[in-house]
């Protein structure tokens, strides 16, 4: 199990997560409370959705640097349109369509014009941030009743535990992604692309369509994550979610998806998000540790997982 590139990294992540919980539980009172755990989901619902989209892209061997900027763009579109009096019933679908179309453009750029994913999504990142500034230079707050209701609603789970509707959305996205990746031909083609595009083509798979579609999915997930993010912050701000693409990539990598594609699971990425979340929680509980340790920890974890992946894949050459 541990030596397989398919399961090894995920198992390591799971063990790591449990270990961090154990350490937290020993050191801090109340750390192992159910709500602490649930808050990992509450605080990171949007990141889970982002990581799901990113997982699709990375599984094919690509990368999407635009997701943070697209989240910001979604918050700006939402905030400005709601301010102008549009109904959420129009705004939300519109955002999802717009970000999916952006993903489509990126996908076409990569597939048709053979632009490297890195560059194509970098361009999309600049485009999305630029559009944010066109909408407004300032933070716009949201007072729409649907959005505020969504933001303040807690879904009780019995005891004194509760979650937000965003968590439900994130969980649904994860379930959908698992089904798509594990049980549809499209999903298997995503893995096939990461295993070898040439092979996939020779096997007669729909390589072109799949390659474009993963970027549409990533765009859609970014839009959805942006909407969840506005539920969380109740505002739109052009500079929001800077560096979020790095968090998403880190979560996916720590969750055991190989950056060269082909190996990995959506549930692993969820574990990756939880690891990032629990590190943050530990640092909060510690009190004396400053928040910048989070980034150093994430960097160190990234390093460990990259070297681990390198070892696991080098062995089978």
């Amino acid at each position, binding site marked *: 199990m541990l030596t397989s590139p398919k399961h090894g990294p995920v198992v390591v992540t799971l063990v790591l997560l449990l270990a961090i919980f154990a350490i937290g539980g020993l050191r801090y009172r109340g750390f192992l409370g159910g709500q602490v755990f649930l808050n990992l989901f509450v605080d990171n619902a949007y990141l889970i959705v982002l990581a799901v989209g990113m997982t699709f892209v990375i599984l094919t061997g690509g990368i999407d640097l635009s997701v943070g900027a697209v989240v910001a763009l979604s918050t700006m579109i939402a905030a400005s349109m709601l301010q102008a009096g549009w109904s959420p019933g129009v705004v939300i679908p519109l955002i999802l369509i717009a970000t999916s179309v952006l993903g489509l453009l990126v996908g076409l750029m990569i597939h048709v014009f053979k632009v490297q994913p890195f560059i194509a999504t*970098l361009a999309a990142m600049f485009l999305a941030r630029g559009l944010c500034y066109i909408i407004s230079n300032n933070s716009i707050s949201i007072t729409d009743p649907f959005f505020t209701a969504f933001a303040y609603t807690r879904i009780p789970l019995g005891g004194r535990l509760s979650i937000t509707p965003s968590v439900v959305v994130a969980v649904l996205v994860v379930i959908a992604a698992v089904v798509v990746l594990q049980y549809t031909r499209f999903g298997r083609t995503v893995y096939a692309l990461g295993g070898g595009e040439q092979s996939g083509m020779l096997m007669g798979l729909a390589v072109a369509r799949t390659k474009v579609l993963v970027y549409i999915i990533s765009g859609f997930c970014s839009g959805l994550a942006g909407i969840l993010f506005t539920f969380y912050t109740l505002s739109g701000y052009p500079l929001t979610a800077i560096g979020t693409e790095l968090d998403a990539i880190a979560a996916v990598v720590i969750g055991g998806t190989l950056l060269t594609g082909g190996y990995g699971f959506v549930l692993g990425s969820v574990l990756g998000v939880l690891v990032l979340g629990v590190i943050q929680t530990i640092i909060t509980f510690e009190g004396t540790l400053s928040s910048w*340790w989070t980034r150093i920890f994430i960097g160190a974890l*990234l390093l460990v997982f990259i070297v681990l992946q390198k070892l696991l894949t080098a062995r089978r050459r």
Partner: protein
Amino acid sequence: MSRVLTNRLFWPVVVLLALFAVNLVAFPGFFAIEVKNGHLFGSLVDIVRNGAPTLIIAIGMTLVIATRGIDLSVGAICAIAGAISCSIILGSPDPGNVGTVVVAVITALLVALVLGLWNGFLVAVIGVQPIIATLVLMTAGRGIAMLITEGQILTVNSAPFKTLGSGFLFGIPVAVWIAAAIFALAALLTRRTALGLFIESVGINPEASRQAGLRSRGLLFSVYTFSAVCAAIAGLVLTSNQTAADANNTGLFIELDAILAVVIGGTSLAGGRYSSSAPWWARSSSRRS
């Protein structure tokens, strides 16, 4: 004529001239350069001065990209260099002392050297893809900078340090002199020694280069180290210009600007042919408002 058209610098130059033309029409004072207090003033001077840090980084990035690599960590290295220099200057009893500033600057550059070696190690020895290898430092780097500044924005009041970013020498901003010096150094190294040939060769055809007896490993170490040192210099200029080290915002997105500048300037990301003069043009045209 066809030689001109096929030159890799042709389109970048055309676009730059077009941008200048647009500016001239839209803002008639655009090209006005005056001399005030013995210094040059004007939009063009601002463009060149504000562009200096990105330009410095783009020079290092050009070499990295020519080897088929990429360096995402330059922004973080900017922040680290700024944080180190400012904390040393603040920690000394005499911030205005030239010696103190020299020590601070050299320490920052040495640390950058180590960080560059680290990137080079991951790429050349462990064999990690460059984008991923430098992602590690990009992620952790700002945290390290925060650690050095202890989360504060370190404001320094040191005249010699301030000169780096806002001073003038012979009427021209010091930052521009620094950029020009690094450019000259890079040009010297790549054109007067065989380094340029080796970098191009490894970037275009690594296997043929290996069989011809090139040591690509050492070469990769050198370019990543050079890139990191360039980033540190840019970080020092930025920090000095703002008279403060801000671990969160110093050099934020500068890696993307630099990559864009290099690409616009005609260096192919697939490695190989590059043009080190290209980023000059590109940077001036990609200035963000």
